[in-house]
């Protein structure tokens, strides 16, 4: 029944958010002119587009994040049973993490974790 309740919650959330926007759209006064639609930056006309190319540094962090995210997901089932599995489980995860720790060390030494 979990899925049904979650969908119910999503519907309620969307109805709430959408309802607020629609209500304010219905009762608020509107007027429009050219200046109003301009980006709110400094007062003088903006130069160039805002959708520019970004520094690759951000992307690098996202890539490293993804690898560790997958690692985390593998560690969750391990953590649940570590009590019953005992010593073997700890040794297994230490090997698993050691290999990944090498990766973090590599990233560190290569300067990938250095901001800009």
């Amino acid at each position, binding site marked *: 029944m*979990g899925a049904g309740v979650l969908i119910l919650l999503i519907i309620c959330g969307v109805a709430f958010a959408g309802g607020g926007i629609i209500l304010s759209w219905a009762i608020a006064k509107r007027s429009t002119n050219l200046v109003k639609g301009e980006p709110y930056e400094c007062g003088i006309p903006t130069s160039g587009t805002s959708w520019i190319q970004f520094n690759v540094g951000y992307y690098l962090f996202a890539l490293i994040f993804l690898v560790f995210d997958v690692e985390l997901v593998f560690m969750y089932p391990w953590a649940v049973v570590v009590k019953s599995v005992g010593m073997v489980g700890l040794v297994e995860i230490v090997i698993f993490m050691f290999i990944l720790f090498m990766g973090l060390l590599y990233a560190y030494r290569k300067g990938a974790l250095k901001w800009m």
Partner: protein
Amino acid sequence: MNVATILFYLLSAVILGGGLLAVTSRKIFRSAVFLLFSLIGIAGLYFLLEYEFIAAVQIVVYVGGIVVLIIFSIFLTHGSGGDMEKPVLIRAVFSGLAAILGCALTYLFIKEQVFIKSNAAAIEPSANNIGSQMLSTTEHGYILPFEVVSMLLLAALIGCIVIAMKVKTEK
């Protein structure tokens, strides 16, 4: 028709509609948003099947990881807000054909496959069972794949650092 069936069709509509819009949308950022919908729908299907662990993994890895990466790579492009140009007709025709062929092939495989009804008791797909299977060193344990996965992740990590650092130093 019971509630579960209705939910199934609802979620399938979200998945297929999201996928279709992601492919056909002219704006690349909008495609990413539709892909997000599609992936969330798949997580919903897992919830419906009560494979809750897999559903959470779907959310954590695909919805919360891969799509973030996709959006970051859109940020890396020039003019992420503009419309993409219309594809050449011949390319559109061929990709349509490829899609239809893929569908037909999948359908054929599913139709040909004889599903044997198993008499073994179903294993509850809880995190506990997954964990103890994963760590077990007996004949049917998955400890070797588990350790190999870490090697795979290490290779992926080093690969992406090498590629991205190359771009970073060039700039």
